[in-house]
C-alpha cells in the first residue's frame, strides 16, 4: 500500500497537485471526517476558553450545594428554596458542591493535553526506533524488535498500571506510562514501512548517488511513510484519552482535587443511584472526544489511501 502511495505521489506531481492537497480535497467531501473535526474543534475551543465561558473556579467548594442535580431538572419550588436560578448549574454539582460544567471543561484540558502529549511522545520515540530498526537492520533491528515483542506481550492498560504503580501516582507519570505502552505500535508501523521503502527504486537511486543515510531517511523514507503514521496518530489520541480516564478512574492519574474525567467518574461511581449526573457528565465528555478523534482518524485513513483516488 505504501509503495503505491509513493508512486501515486509521484503521479500527483505530474498533475501539479501534491498528495496533501489532493487528500484535503477529498477530506472536504468526507462527512464523518468533518463531523469528527467539528467535535474536536469544539472541545479544543471550549476548553481553551473555559475561563471566559464559565468564570468559576473549578476547585471552589460549596458544601451547602453539594450533589445538586442539573438545575434545569429541578422544580421551581426547589430552586427558590435553595436560591438558585434555572441555569445556575446546568450539569449539576459534585460531592463537594463544585460546578460540574466548569469541572468537565477543565477536565477536557487535561484529557486532551495528556492524550496529545502521550501520543506525540510515543510517536516520536517509536518513529525514531522504527526508522533505525528498519533502515539499518542487523543486531539493532533484532534488539528493537525483541523489545517491541516484550512490550506487546502485556495488555496495554495493565502495563500502564504497572508503570504508574512503580513511578507513583501523578498525572505526569500516567502520561509517561501511557506513552510507553504506545511506543511499540509506532515502532512496528514505521519499521515495516521503512523496510519496504528501503528496497524501493528511488531510495536505491538516492543511495547510489551517494546520499548519506540521514538524508535518505529524512528526504525519502520518512515523508513517504507519513500517511500510515498520521492515521495511527489520530486514532491513538482517542484511545489515549480513554486510557488517561481509565488510570484516573483507578486513582492512578491526576491527584484530587484536579478535575480529571476518569477521576470524576470514579467519584460518582458509588453514588450512581442517588446522583447519576456525577458519572454521566464526564462519561459523555469522554465519549464525544473519543468519537471525534476516531471519526477523524478513519477519515484521514480514507483520504490518504490513494486507491480511493479517482
Amino acid at each position, binding site marked *: 500500500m505504501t509503495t503505491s502511495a509513493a508512486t501515486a505521489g509521484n503521479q500527483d506531481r505530474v498533475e501539479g497537485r501534491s498528495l496533501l492537497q489532493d487528500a484535503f480535497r477529498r477530506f472536504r467531501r468526507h462527512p464523518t471526517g468533518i463531523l469528527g473535526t467539528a467535535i474536536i474543534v469544539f472541545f479544543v475551543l471550549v476548553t481553551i476558553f473555559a475561563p471566559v465561558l464559565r468564570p468559576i473556579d473549578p476547585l471552589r467548594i460549596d*458544601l451547602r450545594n453539594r450533589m445538586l442535580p442539573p438545575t434545569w431538572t429541578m422544580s421551581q419550588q426547589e430552586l427558590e428554596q435553595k436560591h438558585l436560578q434555572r441555569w445556575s448549574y446546568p450539569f449539576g454539582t459534585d460531592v463537594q458542591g463544585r460546578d460540574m460544567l466548569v469541572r468537565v471543561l477543565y477536565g477536557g484540558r487535561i484529557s486532551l493535553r495528556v492524550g496529545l502529549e502521550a501520543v506525540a511522545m510515543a510517536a516520536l520515540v517509536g518513529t525514531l526506533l522504527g526508522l533505525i530498526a528498519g533502515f539499518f537492520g542487523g543486531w539493532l533491528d533484532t534488539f528493537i524488535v525483541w523489545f517491541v515483542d516484550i512490550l506487546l506481550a502485556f495488555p496495554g492498560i495493565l502495563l500502564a498500571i504497572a508503570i504508574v504503580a512503580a513511578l507513583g501516582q501523578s498525572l505526569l507519570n500516567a502520561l509517561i506510562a501511557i506513552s510507553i505502552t504506545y511506543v511499540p505500535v509506532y515502532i512496528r508501523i514505521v519499521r515495516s514501512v521503512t523496510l519496504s521503502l528501503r528496497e524501493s527504486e528511488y531510495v536505491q537511486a538516492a543511495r547510489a548517488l551517494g546520499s548519506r543515510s540521514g538524508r535518505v531517511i529524512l528526504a525519502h523514507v520518512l515523508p513517504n511513510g507519513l500517511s500510515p503514521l498520521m492515521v495511527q496518530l489520530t486514532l491513538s489520541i482517542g484511545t489515549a484519552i480513554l486510557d488517561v480516564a481509565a488510570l484516573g478512574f483507578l486513582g492512578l492519574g491526576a*491527584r484530587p482535587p484536579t478535575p480529571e474525567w476518569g477521576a470524576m467518574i470514579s467519584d460518582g461511581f458509588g453514588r450512581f443511584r442517588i446522583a447519576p449526573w456525577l458519572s454521566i457528565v464526564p462519561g459523555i465528555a469522554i465519549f464525544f472526544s473519543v468519537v471525534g478523534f476516531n471519526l477523524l482518524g478513519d477519515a484521514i485513513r480514507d483520504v490518504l489511501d490513494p486507491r480511493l483516488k479517482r
Partner: protein
Amino acid sequence: MKRLAMFVAVGLLALSALASAQTLVYGESGLPVTLDLPQDGNSLTVLYQVAQPLVGFKPGSSELMPLLATSWEANADATQWTFHLREGVSFTDGTPFNAEAVKFNFDRWNNRDNPYAFASQKDMAAWTYIFGAFHGEDGYLLEKVDVLDANTVRFDLTSPVGFFPALVASSYFGIHSPTAIKAAGVDYGTPGVGAVGTGPFKFQEWVEGDHVTLVRNDNYWGDKAKVERIVFRGIESPATRLAELEAGTLDIAVNLSPDDLKAVEGNADLKRATASANLSIGYVGFHQANKPFDDVRVRQAVALAIDQKTIVDSFWSGLGQPAAEFIPPGLIGRAGYEPYAYDPAKAKELLKEAGYPNGFKTEFWYMPVSRPYFPSPKDIAEAVTGYLAQVGIQAELRTEDWGIYLKDYDEGKFPMYMLGWSADYADPNNFIFTFFSPTEIKNGFGWTGSNADEVVKLLGDARQASSETERVTYYHQADKLIYDNVPAMPMVYPTTLNATRANIDGFLPNPLGTTSVQLNEVTKN
C-alpha cells in the same frame, strides 16, 4: 445456551431456597478472614454468633451483662479478678464448658510458647490490642489464669485494671472448644474447619469467596435463635449492599454509606438500624516532626480554618456529630469541650504570628479505605484542603495502600493525615490511651516535651486509679492538655448506618457497632 439457562434456573432455585423465611441473609463488606482470634469486624460478627465471650453487652447498649460468666469480682486493688462461670453449658461438639476450657483459651492467646498458640503460623495480634503484650513481653497485663474449681477461674494481672470485665467482653475473646482446637490444630478457624463454641448458632459451611452459613444451635443455654440459619455474604461496595437489600436478596446490610440515608428512609420496605451513638471517632492528625506542625499556633490555626460542622453535616448526612475530645459521648471522663469554632480570620492571624502570613505548603494523607469514622475519605479530605486553601495552606492530597499507610503513619511520615478508631470495649481507656500511650504519642503525633509527658503520666495514673471519680479527674486534666495543644483535630463521632428489610425485627446494633451483637433475637416475619 441451553446449559446456561439450566445454570440460571438452578441458581435461582438455590437463591429462593436461601431466601426462605427461616434463613437470614446478612451482608457485610467482606467474608471472614479467620474465625480463630480474628482482628476485623467481618470475621468478628460471624464469630460472635458461634463463640461467646465470658461477658456480653445488653441489647443495643454498651453496658456489660453476664454471658458465659454469671458474675465476677475483683480483689481490693483490682489485680485479681474472679469469674463464676455458667453451669451446665456445653460446646456444640459436646465438650463441657468449664474453668479448664476458659483457662485453655486464655493460655493459648497469652503465651506464645503454648503448644496450641501455633506461634509460627498465627500472630494472635488481637490479643495485644487489648492486653498490651504477650506474657513475658514488655508491658504484658495477664500474669496467669487459675482454675479455682470446675466453674470458677481467677485472672492475675500485672497491674491494677478496674475495667477488666470490659476487656474480657471484647468480641475477640469468644471461648472455643478445646477439643475442637486440639483436633484441628493449626487449621482451626479456617474455611474447612470453622469454629466451635457455645453460641446460639453453630458453624455449618464456609464457601470461600461466596458465603458462610451458620445453623441454629438447638442446645443453646439461652434464648434459642428465632431463625434457622444465617448466611453471611461479603459485598465490598456499600452501594451494592444497599441495592441487594432493596432487591430483597439481603435481609440485613451493615455499614452503608451515609449518602444513602435518604434512600433507606424513603423506602417503605427498609428499616434503619442504627445504634443511638457509636463509640467511634475520626480525626485529622498532625505529626510534629514535620514543620511547621511543631508550632501549636499552626495546629490551632488548622483547627480554626476548617468548618468542621459543615463538613460533618455534609458527609455524614446527620449521622455524625462534630467531635472535640478524644473520648466519645457515652463514656466517662469527658470534659465537655466544644469543637474549635470555624474562624478563618483568627486562623490567618495565628499563622501570621507563627511566621506564615502567606500560609505554607504541606501534604495531607487520606485513607485509601472507607471506615464508618470516614465513610468517603477522599471527599472529606478534599473538603478539608479546600478550607485550608482559603487561609493559604496548600495541602497536597496523597494516599497509598492501606497496609503501607498504617506503617508510614506509625513512622511519622505524614505531616497531616486522617485516621480514626472504633471501640473494642466500652471504656475511655480504649480511646484516649490508644492514642496517647507512651509509644503512640510519639509514633502517631510526634508529640514530646513537658505537656506530652504530663498527658502520658495522667493516663497511666487513670488506668490504675482505684475509684471512678479519681479516674475521671485524671482524664479531665489530660483532656485539657490535649484540647489546648491540638496534637490532632477530632473531627467526628459517627453513627454507622445499617438497615434491614422491614420484616426483620430484633436487630439492635450497639455503640460498639455490629461486631458484638448476638443475632438469636432476630426474627423474620
